[in-house]
């Protein structure tokens, strides 16, 4: 930066430095009680009469406080005399102010059914839930952490209104698509920002090997059992402090920590189970296949191939064998989990230490996932003013991988599903051979050798300094380091390794360091004014490097290391970007009744040119707690009522190339005759800058009927401008494309969350939670339509939603001719590309989840259903498998093809076969676009808490034994196996189902034990 100009950045720097030192640290004079009286007591749950540990007990008018021990007991030594006024507080219970006139005293605490006093983490600070202005949902992960998936985000499906989780595949630990309040970007990243204990972590896969369009999930490196709760930040008020990365929402993960004054405890969680596909595809037998192929050849006037061998044919249809490959590829998979954690704390120290191991086989051989993880969280008070602490997690995630998506080489379901059933896996000499251009399944499964090991450290170190009761300074250093080591070895029995073996080894490293400072001020003035202030800055650097080597030509299949290869090549990649940010927030509350806040974040990114580097992201939020008004004070059935609204702008630059704005010449793979070359690689776009999303939100929170019924309703409108878009350059320029800020996209919708305690009796309770959301996505501005996916199945165009399906609308099959009749959109009498139209998209009309929790004495029962209504899926497996014999030996034929038109008068929607991509079996035919609506019985879980009498004898504080079923049923009209399946993990190609295993149905038994 030039020294002569006082840039905005420098002004911010100076301001920040000023604020930092302008504050005097005025220490608080400590109250030393005169020791002459003792107060003792025990705190118990009003309902269960069980002692509560960890309750903060404070004497009124003094700062001194103690915590209850394991048996709920507390003790004060004080200079005051009876009666005392005590303040009691504990998470999940109503705050209590009580006058005590006897000692020892027994104090009963009341559970708060809707945890209004619960504390919610909002951008760098915490707020009581009742005073929230933004749209934030908090999910304790406990309820779902035993669902067998690789990553916790998959477990959140159906738990948060407006959070759409598309699981894509039944392979554990693979990346999924999460969309919070729709999608805002075509070519930048649409994933929400993941923040784990304040560390902005990488959520983009480091995978470089081709697994058929899928990618591994870096979020699966985190052990779900270590997560205390997850908060999902949705509106601009909540996300603005995350500025440039808030446009797609923020997922804040808070891991478990020890509590001060809590005795040491050990938690053990174990489960083990089995998973299996709920159903598999219906295929034709060898005979049926042959009949259909003969019929196709008759249709087009060619001789039938399935005639007797004597006549030079392949044998009569009735002579064809049927070979079942599917049951060889699928298996009953094992899922196992073991976690142990140790936590507790003294007055000054709190710790959490855990280890976990999770192993999951995929139902598709030979894929599997395992994760070993370790965590250590520590908080230490140095003195009354200074606190330091650290969060650390180290994990190793191992995967046996296989191509479970697009093919052909190494594609497991290409070999198992797409190979015609009549073809023997052996040739005439009895040698195993691959058919239809795919691998031989047995050879493939036995020789698959593709895997990765992800070594991940996520951690931070913080120091907190209480400058005064109102001012607090915090500084944090964080690190997210991921080493991703992957290998593939294809021996000469497999297509990819023929004729003499192919091995690749790649090591990628992604490092993000973050340094962050915040200064916060919070003060209550004259008992009705609450003022808060926050300023802070963040510096972040992210580096990615990759070194990869490939070897070809191995002496025998016993040699697998690249060093044994006759020919080796290698490559290296490197990328880096930096981000500098300053942020501030001011909030004011009058009488906890009127709440307002304003925040601003300035982000500078190294990805853009000077003059375009800085983005400014402001937000304002307002809330009005009507319940605090006089006119509602006495309305007893309303316990709380709040209206809130916010408006703000957030940004996005994630997922674009770090040097996308520059003129580049490359030297990668450009040598000729072994001498180095250089090529013009990219044209400059000096003006490239931030994608900006403005969002308006209005919401209503209410708690009714003694807090037994509560709901939250939100409406939002998001509009994204300057959307990062890869624009096509005319080929005459010598370039294909460049990145520009030109797309505009809107998302609007509503969300409803409802919680109800239906029955609350001493030994029976029943509660229900429901959430439902609707998002309407629309491309507002896009100069030229863009196609994605196989056969251009997906179209983005102005005026339509993103991820729309672009197909020919098949009206009916003419009963007279057996030919498919398509809608002639432009009415020119011909069916051409002009007649393709948008018929639906992957967006559901409504989606959400319903859970019911029952307890009866020591038993608990949970049911959890998720649903999605109105989304479409393109059944690409069926497109291939329903070509009516025209693909002959090159492809499987599905049993559904037997419903084809055969003779005049037949009423069916499966036309007679006329060849590949002719009229009846056109690429992009609408016949294979199906309704993907579903209602999924996500989990059913039954638990039993062993009674305290037994436990006391074993000195165990808690033991729960449970059985759980996951994905028990899925009600859907979709004819494929799983309406969530997608061949390609790339967001712009969602909803095309090909070669992907379904999410399995699984059963497991487990125990939760606390010592």
């Amino acid at each position, binding site marked *: 930066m030039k020294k002569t100009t006082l840039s905005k950045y420098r002004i911010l720097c100076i301001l920040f430095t000023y604020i930092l030192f302008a504050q005097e640290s005025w220490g608080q004079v400590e109250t030393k009680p005169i020791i002459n009286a003792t107060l003792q007591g025990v705190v118990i749950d009003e309902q269960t009469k069980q002692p509560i540990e960890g309750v903060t007990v404070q004497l009124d008018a003094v700062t001194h406080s103690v915590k209850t021990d394991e048996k709920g007991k507390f003790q004060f030594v004080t200079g005051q005399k009876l009666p005392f006024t005590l303040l009691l507080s504990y998470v999940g219970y109503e705050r209590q102010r009580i006058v005590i006139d006897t000692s020892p005293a027994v104090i009963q605490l009341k559970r708060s059914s809707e945890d209004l006093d619960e504390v919610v983490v909002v951008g760098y600070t915490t707020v009581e839930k009742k005073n929230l202005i933004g749209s934030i949902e908090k999910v304790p992960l406990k309820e779902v952490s035993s669902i067998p998936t690789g990553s916790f985000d998959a477990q959140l499906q159906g738990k948060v209104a407006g959070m759409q989780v598309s699981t894509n595949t039944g392979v554990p630990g693979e990346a999924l698509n999460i969309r919070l309040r729709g999608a805002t970007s075509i070519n930048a990243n649409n994933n929400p920002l993941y923040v784990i204990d304040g560390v902005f972590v990488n959520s983009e896969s480091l995978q470089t090997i081709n697994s058929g369009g899928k990618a591994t999930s870096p979020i699966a490196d985190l052990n779900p059992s270590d997560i205390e709760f997850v908060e999902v930040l949705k509106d601009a008020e909540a996300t603005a402090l995350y500025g440039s990365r808030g446009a797609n929402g923020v997922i804040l993960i808070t891991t478990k920590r020890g509590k001060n004054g809590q005795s040491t405890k050990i938690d053990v969680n174990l489960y083990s189970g089995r998973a299996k596909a709920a159903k598999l595809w219906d295929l034709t037998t060898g005979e049926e296949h042959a009949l259909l192929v003969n019929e196709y050849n008759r249709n087009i006037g060619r001789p039938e191939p399935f005639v007797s061998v004597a006549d030079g044919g392949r044998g009569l249809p009735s002579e064809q064998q049927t070979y079942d490959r599917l049951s060889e590829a699928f298996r009953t998979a094992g899922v196992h989990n073991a976690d142990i954690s140790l936590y507790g704390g003294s007055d000054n120290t709190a710790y959490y230490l855990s280890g976990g191991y999770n192993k999951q086989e995929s139902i598709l051989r030979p894929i599997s996932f395992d994760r070993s993880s370790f965590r250590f969280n520590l908080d230490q008070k140095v003195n009354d003013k200074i606190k330091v602490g650290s969060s650390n997690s180290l994990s190793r995630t191992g995967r046996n991988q296989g191509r479970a998506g697009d093919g052909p080489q190494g594609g497991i379901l290409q070999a198992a599903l797409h190979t015609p059933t009549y073809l023997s896996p052996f040739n005439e000499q009895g040698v195993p051979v691959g058919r239809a251009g795919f691998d031989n399944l047995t050879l493939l499964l036995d020789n698959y050798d593709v895997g990765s090991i992800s070594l991940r450290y996520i951690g931070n170190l913080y120091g907190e300094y209480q400058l005064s009761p109102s001012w607090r300074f915090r500084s944090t250093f964080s690190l997210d380091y991921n080493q991703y080591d992957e290998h593939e070895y294809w021996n000469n029995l497999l297509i990819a390794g023929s004729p003499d073996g192919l091995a690749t080894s790649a090591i990628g490293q992604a490092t993000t360091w973050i340094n962050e400072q915040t200064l916060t001020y919070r003060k209550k003035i004259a008992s009705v004014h609450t003022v808060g202030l926050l300023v802070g800055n963040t510096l972040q650097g992210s580096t990615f490097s990759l070194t990869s080597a490939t070897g*070809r030509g191995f002496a025998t299949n016993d040699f697998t290391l690249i060093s044994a290869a006759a020919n080796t090549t290698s490559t290296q990649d490197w990328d880096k970007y930096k981000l500098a940010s300053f942020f501030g927030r001011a909030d004011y509350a009058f009488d906890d009744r009127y709440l307002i806040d304003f925040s601003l974040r300035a982000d500078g990114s190294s990805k853009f040119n000077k003059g375009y580097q800085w983005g400014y992201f402001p937000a304002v939020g307002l809330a009005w707690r009507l319940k605090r008004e006089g006119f509602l004070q006495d309305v007893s059935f309303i316990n709380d009522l709040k209206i809130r609204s916010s408006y703000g702008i957030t940004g996005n630059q994630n997922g674009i190339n770090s040097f996308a704005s520059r003129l580049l010449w490359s030297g990668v793979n450009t040598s000729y005759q072994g001498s180095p070359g250089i090529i013009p690689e990219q044209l400059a776009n000096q003006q490239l800058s931030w994608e900006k999303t403005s969002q308006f939100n209005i919401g209503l929170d209410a708690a009714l009927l003694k807090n037994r019924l509560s709901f939250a309703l939100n409406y939002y409108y998001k509009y994204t401008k300057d959307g990062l878009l890869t624009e096509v350059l005319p080929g*005459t320029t010598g370039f294909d494309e460049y990145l520009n800020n030109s797309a505009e996209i809107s998302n609007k919708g509503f969300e409803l969350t409802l919680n109800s305690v239906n029955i609350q009796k001493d030994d029976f309770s029943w509660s229900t939670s429901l959430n439902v959301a609707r998002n309407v996505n629309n491309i507002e501005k896009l100069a030229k339509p863009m196609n994605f996916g196989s056969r251009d199945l997906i179209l983005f165009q102005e005026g339509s939603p993103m991820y729309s399906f672009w197909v020919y609308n098949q009206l009916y099959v003419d009963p007279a001719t057996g030919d498919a009749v398509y809608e002639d959109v432009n009415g020119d009498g011909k069916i051409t590309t002009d007649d393709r139209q948008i018929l639906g998209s992957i967006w559901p009309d409504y989606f959400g989840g319903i859970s019911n929790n029952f307890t009866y004495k020591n038993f608990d029962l949970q049911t959890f259903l998720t649903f999605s209504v109105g989304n479409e899926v393109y059944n690409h497996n069926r497109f291939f498998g329903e070509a009516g014999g025209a693909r002959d030996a090159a492809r499987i034929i599905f049993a559904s093809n037997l419903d084809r038109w055969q003779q005049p008068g037949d009423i069916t929607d499966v036309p007679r076969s006329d060849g590949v991509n002719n009229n009846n079996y056109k690429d992009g035919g609408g016949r294979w676009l199906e309704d993907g609506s579903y209602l999924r019985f996500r989990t059913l879980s039954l638990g039993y808490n062993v009674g305290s009498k037994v436990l006391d004898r074993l000195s165990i504080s808690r033991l729960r034994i449970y059985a759980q079923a996951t994905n028990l049923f899925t009600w859907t009209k979709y004819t494929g196996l799983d309406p969530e399946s997608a061949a390609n993990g790339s967001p712009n190609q969602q909803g095309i189902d090909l070669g992907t295993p379904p999410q399995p149905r699984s059963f497991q038994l487990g125990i939760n034990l606390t010592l």
Partner: protein
Amino acid sequence: MIRNYMLYIAVLVASSSCSSFLEVDPKASISGENVIHDQASANAALNGAYVALRDYYSVNFQSIAYLSGDNVEWTGSQSQIQEFINHRVNAENSTIAATWNGLYESVNRANNIIKALRDNEALDITADERALILGQAYAIRALSYFDLVRIWGGVPLITEPTTNVGENAGVVRSNSDQTYAQILADLSAAEELLPQATNRFIFTKKTVWALKARFYLYQEDWTQAIAYANRLLTDTEYELLNPYYSFFKSNVTGTRESVFELYYNANELNPHRGQWQPQTNGGTRQWAPNAALVSLLTTAATGGARSELIARDNQNRWYGNLYYRSPASDPTYVIRIAELYLIRAEASAHANDYQQAIADLNSVRARALLTAKPASQNQTEILRAIEDERRLEFAFEAHRWFDLVRTGRAQEVLGITESFRLLLPIPYSQILADPVLEQNPGYSF
């Protein structure tokens, strides 16, 4: 202590970071202008231009020429490939889009070199080197435009490099005469600049002569075609290898048969074989010799030594075996001496020198271990014999479609009813990206 720490943070924030924190430079690529500034960088840029030529030649461009002929069938599932075989190519076809872009990438890289070397007198480079590099850049541009005009007819003529968004867009198509004139100008410039050397992997004066022989054949300037073919055919550095398969079998490269071939090795891989080889050899065999070609090649009277072009896999299926090497380093054959024999034969037949025509034809037949054609005075019969010979001699090389279109025989031989299909459609994506591009007549977009 706390004060010191805070002071440290403040200093970190306020000083070091403010000035240069947000400056990050790429390592995998270089950023900036005037990249071609000396002999080394000019040579590197030239290699980059050869890489562009090699990229479009390796699969896409060649496949247009042979798939559109009558030798190859498609066994895969994508219908866009089948469109060539059915001679019903749509404007949305992805192969033509990729080929168009690949060709202009090659043009742009050549333009970068031409501009840097032609206009910049101060460039640190010797005169000989300057001529050598500049001449090759002209030749690369000539070949690229030659390949463009053969597929689409006249195209936009771009002769300056693109340095900013907005440049070299909105240029209307020239007609095919103008395009051929540009090719000739570039070939002549290259001819003048390049030394008369033998190098089978880069352009020399001799390579340019060979290209000119082909150019004049397409222009039906028989005299010039014969004259330029003669320059190569009288050069002892080039000869027909005997038997036919000696130019590609046993992993040979740069044989005396070769006039110009694109170089590959274990580090610079050619993906072409993957389309041809069967699964047991690590390919997809998505392109396979069709029954008619198998019959011609396996019949001794027509195939001869050329039967080595095909082989059978472990399921008794035929596959093309011209591109077979592992690691995949099969050369792309751009001009072989056999083509110059057949150019001279064809031009001579047109110039009524039937004896020369039959003699050249028989030279090519002899090394394929085929019997000699008897003398003939029937021009049509001789031209048909040359046509048939070219079909098998270049069965899997980029000739058949262009030959049949050039001689006006495509409709008859391939059974194409609509004559507009002899020029392929301008890619639809290009018309979207640049509306000044006029579609070839007959196509809907």
